[in-house]
């Protein structure tokens, strides 16, 4: 019997004006014509709440690309979900922000690419930084609770202190400093994004100090650069244990990176109820519990802490999702990670575009 899930990430669109080379969307993206309808999403939110989901992320792509975002936020609010809008801020006009507040939206997370606006625009692949500054001003003015999110990598890690001060000067309630996780587009751009060990160590010190200094004013979440750690990051609460992701076209995943596991088949909310998918589907049951584990995970006491690490990463790097996450220094697979760290080099990025067919590797 599965636990009740707590969190739903609704990737309502893959459309996005930005082209970030670390985008968490898959390489093969979904076009607007394949997206779920407003009614589909409303049903998904109601089913999620009935299943025990408490947290909703309205994400993308850029969720503001959907004209029905306000209706979706209102529906989530009616269900009592604690809803976060995960946005680049591009397209967040005052009128839309007011409508979202009216709809009951509780929390907005705005991404920034860098504290250096020119560098930020280079990473975004568009003139985005000034528009983000304007979006932050609107969010503040309307009194929204808001977070700033910055993805960290070789080109901005040395400015982590500036990024923290910028978010604090904006009055952010919360700052997520997320070292790049290498999936999808980021895996394609790994050599260019990978920081040095010295950069990682320095940034960690800066973040630790800022976390103490801003305690009680701005909560700082520091997402570790897992390649530089000794043990892997835990699979998000355990596979099929707390987390559900629904993609723009309705495929339902145990993790946003799971489409990388090409041996799994994902059921669609157009065909099945969310409850059936959660309890019965082969994808959600594939790595539940620990029966699937091989050594060194099976006999390892850390399996209760990290669940063998990330299944998506194990598959992406070893073509077998039942292997230990190669980040773990207890597995000989760790050499894959060490080689990737050594292969780091400042090269050009491959930027994300929605029409990916011509740009596949």
């Amino acid at each position, binding site marked *: 019997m599965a636990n*009740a899930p*707590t*969190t739903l990430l609704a990737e309502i669109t893959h459309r996005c004006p930005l082209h970030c080379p670390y985008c968490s969307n898959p390489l093969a993206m979904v076009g607007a014509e394949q997206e779920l309808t407003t009614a589909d999403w409303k049903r998904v939110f109601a089913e999620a*709440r*009935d*299943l*025990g989901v*408490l*947290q909703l992320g309205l994400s993308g792509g850029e969720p503001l690309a959907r004209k029905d975002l306000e209706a979706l936020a209102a529906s989530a609010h009616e269900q*009592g979900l*604690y809803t*976060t809008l995960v946005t680049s801020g591009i397209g967040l006009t005052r009128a839309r922000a007011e409508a979202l507040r009216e709809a009951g939206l*509780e*929390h907005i*997370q705005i991404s920034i690419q860098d504290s250096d606006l020119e560098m930020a625009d280079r990473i975004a692949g568009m003139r985005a930084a000034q528009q983000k500054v304007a979006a932050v001003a609107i969010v503040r003015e309307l009194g929204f*609770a808001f*977070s700033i999110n910055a993805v960290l990598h070789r080109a901005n890690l040395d400015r982590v202190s500036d990024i923290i001060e910028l978010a604090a000067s904006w009055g952010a*309630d*919360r700052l997520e400093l997320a070292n790049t996780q290498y999936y999808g587009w980021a895996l394609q751009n790994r050599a260019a994004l990978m920081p040095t060990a010295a950069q990682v160590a320095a940034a960690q010190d800066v973040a630790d100090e800022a976390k103490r200094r801003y*305690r*009680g004013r701005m*909560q700082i979440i520091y997402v570790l650069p897992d390649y530089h750690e000794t043990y892997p990051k835990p699979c998000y609460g355990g596979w099929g244990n707390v987390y559900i992701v629904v993609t723009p076209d309705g495929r339902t995943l145990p993790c946003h990176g799971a489409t990388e596991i090409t041996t799994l088949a994902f059921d669609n909310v157009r065909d099945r109820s969310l409850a059936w998918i959660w309890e019965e589907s082969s994808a959600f049951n594939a790595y539940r519990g620990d029966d699937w584990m091989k050594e060194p995970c099976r006999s390892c006491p850390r399996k209760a802490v990290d669940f063998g690490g990330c299944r998506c990463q194990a598959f992406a790097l070893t073509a077998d999702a039942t292997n230990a996450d190669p980040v773990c220094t207890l597995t000989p697979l760790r050499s894959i990670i060490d080689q990737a760290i050594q292969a780091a080099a400042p090269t050009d990025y491959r930027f994300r575009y929605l029409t990916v067919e011509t740009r596949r590797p």
Partner: protein
Amino acid sequence: MTFTPSSVPTLWRLARLDFDRVRQQRVLLYPEGAVLLNDTGAAVLELCDGLRSVGDIAKILEDRYHCDVTADVVEYLSQLEEKELVRG
């Protein structure tokens, strides 16, 4: 920080109390997280209105449960303060 009887605790402005009808339990919700609450935990947090002190809250609960709860209230709020969910 640790709370004292004169501290005035408030919930983080990003956190809110709710009742989860699926788990039949009170919950404290905040970005990317939830704390499932037992009845006494929920009773403490419901009284954190930014006006009452820890001492006021303990007094109300003492009248309700007929035992001295000050130390428990301080301990409980301090744990949540550690997670930055309560401020004082």
